[in-house]
């Protein structure tokens, strides 16, 4: 992606966050550019929420530097342009959706007709106009999530932090919110999206980072990350002695024999593909099919997480 021309919305330099004996975030550096949707991925406990809280000034870095919209995190001026939707948000239960959103509006100095208008607009946007007067105590999780989004948009923010915005939602709501996120981006906002929902991230994010055990393991555009799939070659009538089989195994370890057919998987690069095809021909085999298997973000994610696990074992 051509982000180089855009200003940085978030700069993270060598961020470390330690709790007593645990290193939650271990020296991460990351830039998010204005106008992009940045997917922030990682399993539970990877350090995602810790990073977001640091960016919002809710907690403080043990070392390293974070800047948001060009200013240090927690600066009151930035908060006018930033918003945050926490995971499973909770609001004052005794209030109605209208009151809660109005309450947050008041914190930005909204009042009178301007406030009413903005609140109405947002309730309509998230589809709560009908239930706007019920106390939140009667709301389902999905409805609360919509209230959360409405409050997050109250200040017409430049930068939004969404922490698991679609968790626990029914499929329709899920798609609504995904669409909304795209719409927000199209309005020129920057979105920092932390999520488990890999399919969402894959669909909407411009760039993605995968965090595991406090470190960034992958960073790049979705296209870059999922590039470099495998090729599955199926061959028949191969006559090969142990020596020749040894040669094949040197090319790829992923070989199986099913119903006298060899199924050989190798990386999608031309060299390794041709090497395998050459080997089949040299051993008088017939190539039945050559199929390229494209990887999903999910594959990348689990691969990354597994790497992290083994490296953790090694380092332990």
């Amino acid at each position, binding site marked *: 992606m051509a982000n180089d021309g855009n200003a940085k919305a978030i700069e993270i330099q060598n961020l470390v966050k330690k709790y007593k004996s645990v290193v939650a975030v271990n020296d991460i550096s990351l830039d998010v550019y204005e106008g992009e949707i940045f997917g922030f991925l990682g399993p539970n406990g990877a350090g995602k929420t810790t990073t977001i809280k640091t960016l919002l000034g809710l907690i403080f870095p043990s070392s390293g530097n974070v800047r948001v919209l060009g200013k*240090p995190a927690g*600066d009151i001026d930035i908060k006018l342009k930033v918003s945050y939707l926490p995971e499973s948000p909770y609001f004052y239960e005794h209030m109605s959706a209208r009151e809660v959103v109005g309450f947050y509006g008041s914190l930005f100095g909204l009042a009178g007709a301007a406030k009413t208008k903005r609140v109405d607009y947002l309730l309509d946007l998230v589809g709560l106009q009908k239930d706007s007067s019920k106390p939140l105590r009667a709301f389902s999780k999905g409805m609360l999530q919509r209230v959360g989004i409405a409050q997050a948009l109250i200040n017409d923010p430049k930068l939004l932090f969404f922490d698991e915005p679609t968790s626990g939602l029914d499929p329709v709501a899920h798609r609504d919110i995904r669409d909304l996120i795209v719409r927000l981006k199209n309005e020129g906002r920057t979105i920092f999206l932390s999520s488990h929902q890999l399919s969402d991230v894959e669909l909407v994010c411009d760039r993605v980072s995968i965090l595991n055990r406090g470190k960034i393991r992958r960073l790049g555009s979705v296209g870059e990350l999922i590039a470099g799939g495998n090729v599955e070659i199926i061959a028949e009538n191969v006559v090969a002695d142990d020596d020749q089989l040894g040669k094949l195994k040197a090319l790829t370890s992923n070989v199986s024999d099913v119903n006298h057919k060899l199924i050989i998987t190798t990386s999608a690069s031309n060299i390794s593909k041709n090497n395998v095809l050459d080997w089949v021909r040299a051993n008088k085999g017939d190539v039945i099919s050559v199929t390229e298997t494209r990887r999903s973000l999910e594959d990348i994610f689990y691969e990354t997480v597994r790497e992290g696990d083994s490296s953790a074992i090694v380092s332990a």
Partner: protein
Amino acid sequence: MMSNSKRQLILVLALLLFIPIGFLQVNMDPTRHKYEPDYGNVKSAVENKGGLPIEMALGAFTGFREAVAGLLWVRTDEFFHNGDYEAITPMIRIITWLDPHFIDVYETGAWHMDYNFTDADQRSDRRYIPLALSLMREGIKNNPDLPELYSDLAFTHYYRKISDFNMSREYYERGMKKIIEIEADAKANPNDANKKAAAQQAALQITTLGHGLAHTYEALGMPDEALKQWEYCYKAHMDNLAAGFGGQFGESSSAQNVQKQIQEMTMRRKWRATMTQPPVDYKFDAQLVRVAPKVFEMRGKLNSIGAKKFVLETGAHEWGLIDGTRIEIRFQDADYKTPEINNFSLNSLSLNPNLTIMQDSASVRDGKFSRKIDMSKDPEMYSFTAPKYTVTMWFNPSNHSDTPPQVQDRIGWRGEGMTDSRYLDTSGIVPGDTSGPQPGLRLLKKTFTLTHEDVMGQGQKVFE
């Protein structure tokens, strides 16, 4: 986010505020003590066995101390009705520690101690008297602005219980002074509603306090002062009437009563100056008879001459033997003298079980008196463990309950018109009092000394 230096500055400033806090606290302490009980003593009461129940102790140390005092007082009332006297006194002690302004408890408590803990024949246990006096004095110390407390101590305890008119006069006069002070203070601060209310309340004490002082002056043989006091009272009642204090009926009937007192007093002062001389011989004699162990009979004679007929206006009179005088008897350990208790602790409530004091009186009819006194039914009150006992029988002309006015018309307020060839006592000391000689008082007094054997022995024995 606040910078570190700003944050540190704020922390220092906040901590510096502890200086004015401490200063304020020290300044407030003296006023605060006026609202508080004597916690040192309450604490010791809590620690003392049989003292304060723990739940009450907890209440006592938080915002509930008056409630605790009130509840304890209710419980004390139950004890009294059940006859559980021993439990009453510690309660009274603790309640007045908890709530030093609970006036009812001082008054009722001291009254219980002086009058209501009795033997089988309704004679009060005189071992309590020093405690009752001490409790009342403490009540006055804690509530120096309430004239009714002075009045109560002066009358109920000194005047009526032990005929100690010196002390009665002292407290009545202090109470009078207080009334005058309170009234002057209210006059000086006409806009202070509290002071005005206090003055009104004080003004109404004239009926008890003012009259009581006049009677005490009479008992001390000071008719001039008594008259002056009655006149003061008359004026005070009229002032109250004019100011609309109290019930109109009460004040006007008090004023009438005082007017009558002034008339009688004026006449009596005039006649008694001459009628009481020369002294008449009252020919007092008394015998003590042991009937059985710890059971005695007092008997004897008194030539109680008084005015059989007396016209106040003309002074016309006719002398004769008058019934209704009383002979007091006091039976006590030989070396006992009523002690003064200044610090009334819970420990002082454990009465000396080895101390025996008994006081009673017999009325004189046709010049004779006799009364059986049985001390065998109350071994706890009358333990008789001392080796020697003093028994005193006496006639006190200054005491209104022992000497009717028509007898005083002959012998005067202090017995100045009375003599006796054998038993006249001019020491002025009334047995069992606390303040020493009462000036000019002439008693007829006969004292017996008994051994332990004399008290416990079988069969009849007459002591002369």
